């Protein structure tokens, strides 16, 4: 798994590649949590993510909780049908905005 984090204005965009399982989820957490402490919008680009297990959902939950505490939001981009199914099954889907592209995620309110 690989994470590329960049800042656009006050937004943080994290593009993730590969699998988010119990092996890689801690790395994802360490790449994202420290850099989002002042941001109000986090965009997670999952276009190149091939697999997400409950360990990955746990990281999403931590990001969500941090943002929610200061009225921010987490926008997911490029969520595959399979990952969407997993998020639906677990009731996670309702808490994230899902956008087709990073550009739309940046301009979403």
């Amino acid at each position, binding site marked *: 798994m690989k994470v590329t984090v960049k800042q656009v204005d006050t937004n943080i965009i994290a593009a993730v590649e590969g699998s988010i399982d119990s092996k890689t989820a801690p790395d994802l957490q360490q790449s994202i949590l420290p850099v989002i402490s002042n941001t109000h919008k986090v965009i997670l680009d999952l276009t190149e993510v091939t697999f997400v297990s409950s*360990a990955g959902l746990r990281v999403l939950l931590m990001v969500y*909780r941090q943002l929610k505490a200061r009225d921010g939001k987490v926008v997911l981009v490029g969520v595959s049908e399979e990952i969407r199914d997993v998020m639906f*099954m*677990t009731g996670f889907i309702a808490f994230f905005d899902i956008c087709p592209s990073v550009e739309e995620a940046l301009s979403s309110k």
Partner: protein
Amino acid sequence: MDNAAKIFPASLDSLEPIRDYVSKRCEVLGFNKKKTYGLCLAIDEIATNIINYGYPKAGIGLGIIEVHMADDARQLTVTLIDTAVAFDPLAHLVPNQDDMNKPLEDRPIGGLGILLARQNVDEFRYERRGDQNCNVFVVNVSS
């Protein structure tokens, strides 16, 4: 009927190789992406439990996970065998519908993996055979 088995070290580094091993068979059987993904997810979740809790609780430094696969015209059966502490995922509490409807900030996070394991295959069984845990995942070929 076709049988195959492979032994993996019970380490988080084995998760991806285990998923690859299983998904290659799914590909040969012509499973669609959704079915393959569901089976790999179910297996990943149970293997993670064995690695993170089962063997450490048994005081075993580095155990093994055997992955057995058997298929016929009707179904693919994958069995994970380990010698960690006895653990029946079916006896474990999983989040219920009330939990699922809770806002994410109040949500209990435990048990999610087991829920995903059970929901993503057509049949999930657990058996304790001697000192072995056998987690059995069955996927129907045509469903």
